[in-house]
């Protein structure tokens, strides 16, 4: 977090409005992500969390506003950004292997036409080792469990060797062991100076896993360090009082029990 001073923020979002047809999914969002932090984006269903990530990476075109990655437009900073889409956004029956999918993370570095070779293979194997599924490298991807699929996606992000990572619900549908492994990995990434932004659903774990948080519900309710903005008032503004987290716990506590508020 010390690297923030004097540097352009990792991501700067200003006046961002995204609409599908007439329906705005993001309304005039301002957000700043300093370099080197681990940030959660939380909010109810339909709050525009995925759209925010897609707008940052240029996958959806905003109606208004702009996004800067380290002070420049995304197009010029492509190699700096790694992306992990939602697990169910791809066809897991696609005819390919685990190792092959990890190597896809290197395609950006290779550019058009150049084929992955021994270097990419070695990097991919190393990443699989890191996420703990190296023994599955030759496996057809349809044979993976949900947790293994998510680890595979993380390995693919690791080989992208980006400075900023945007992850869409990496904890969705994984077991407790995998969740812990992923958290360890995310913290490791932060320790190496990466900036990681994660769409997250489980409010209970926000203070434990993340140091920054953005509360989103079409508009950006609050964005900042967890201990400053992750409080009753902001959560109520985001979820409209429907959140069980508020009634059971004092904000900022990390509790293992209680229901999922997201």
């Amino acid at each position, binding site marked *: 977090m010390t690297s923030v001073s004097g540097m352009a923020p990792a991501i700067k979002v200003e006046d961002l409005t995204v609409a599908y047809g007439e329906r705005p999914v993001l309304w005039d969002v301002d957000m700043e992500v300093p370099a080197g932090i681990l940030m959660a984006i939380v909010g109810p269903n339909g709050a525009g969390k995925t759209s925010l990530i897609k707008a940052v*990476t240029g996958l959806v075109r905003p109606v208004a506003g702009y996004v800067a990655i380290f002070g420049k437009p995304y197009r010029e900073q492509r190699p700096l950004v790694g992306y992990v889409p939602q697990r169910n956004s791809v066809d897991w029956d696609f005819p390919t292997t685990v190792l092959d999918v990890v190597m896809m993370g290197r395609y950006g570095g290779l550019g058009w036409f150049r084929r992955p070779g021994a270097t990419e293979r070695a990097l991919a194997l190393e990443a699989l080792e890191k996420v703990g599924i190296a023994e599955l490298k030759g496996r057809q991807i349809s044979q993976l469990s949900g947790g293994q699929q998510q680890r595979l996606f993380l390995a693919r992000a690791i080989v992208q060797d980006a400075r900023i990572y945007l992850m869409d619900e990496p904890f969705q549908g994984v077991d407790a062991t995998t969740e812990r492994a992923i958290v360890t990995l995310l913290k490791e990434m932060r320790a190496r100076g990466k900036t990681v932004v994660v769409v997250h659903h489980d409010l209970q774990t926000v203070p434990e896993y993340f140091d920054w948080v953005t509360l989103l519900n079409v508009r950006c309710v609050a964005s900042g360090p967890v201990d400053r903005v992750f409080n009753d008032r902001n959560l109520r503004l985001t979820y409209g009082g429907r959140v069980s987290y508020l009634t059971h716990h004092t904000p900022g506590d990390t509790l293992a029990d209680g229901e999922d508020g997201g």
Partner: protein
Amino acid sequence: MTAPQFEIQLIAVVVAVSCALPGTFLVLRRMAMMSDAISHSILFGIVVAFFVVRDLSSPFLVVAAALTGVLTVSLVELLNRTGLVREDAAIGLTFPALFSVGVILVSRYAGSVHLDTDSVLLGELAFAPFNRLAVMGYDIGPRAFYLMAGIMLLNILFIAVFYKELKLATFDASLAGVLGFLPGFLHYALMALVSVTAVGAFDAVGSILVVALMIAPPTTAYLLVDRLSLMLAVSALLGAVSAISGYWIAHVLDASIAGSMASMAGLLFGAAYLAAPGRGLIAITVRRVRQRWKFAQTMLLVHLYNHEGLPAEVRENRIPTLHEHLKWDHRFAERVVAAAGRQGLVESRDRRLLLTDRGRRAAREAMVG
């Protein structure tokens, strides 16, 4: 085999291989029905281009067809994006509109040329050798072969050059977009390729059966292999096999070559559907039956184990009573017991069933999981 026979088979193989390659991507992108839409709506492009150049063998027709194919896909997406109709309905609205205009134009103005509705729908491969290509007075073979071979090379080249990009954009279009690989461009390029292939294949097999050649071989290959590169190769091979076997079946039955080719492609799919290793119906059934037997046997062992040494053992652990305790019918119970006995898991002594040491271990393992 006569020369025309050889030529017809050669053209058939080239058509089938050309169709199988882009067809593989259509199948993987769940756009199989788009081939149907494109193969019909290109008629509109062909007819309009024909009125302009007045020559059925002009390469301009191929370009016009490619443009019409892209137009079809764009119209479908435009309709779909309005949110008023779903994608399948959008396809169902778009291509008949273009196709019907094409049919009207053909029937009204082009009646005197080779372009007639029959050949549009079914094609006629048997006539292909009559239309020769001559270079400086020398006959170098049927025109259809050169047209189709060119299209096949174009397909091979496109897939070879953009292999990595196509794979990524097909598997994960959003990552392709984030990495700057223009999935939209690749999508339309692929659709243009499907259109060009369809217009080439059109003459030989017609606009309906071209769909069979684009979809059936890749779907069959999908059941047989699990690598994209292999799927492309196997699709092409299956296409070629359908072409040659289809030709000879048509020869024997004195029937339509295109129809026989498409039927062979369908039969090959049927065979794979039944017998594909690991994924076919037979393999699935065998696996299910085996699991059922194995589960029944484990149930038997656990049942015996749970009652071992208890006062009720004498009553519970007997073959005649198994069917009420485990809800098995008598014959099934006897077969399970016999199978367990053969494997040395149980033994029966004066009509009582006893676990062997191995059987006891197996039961304990099953319960621990």
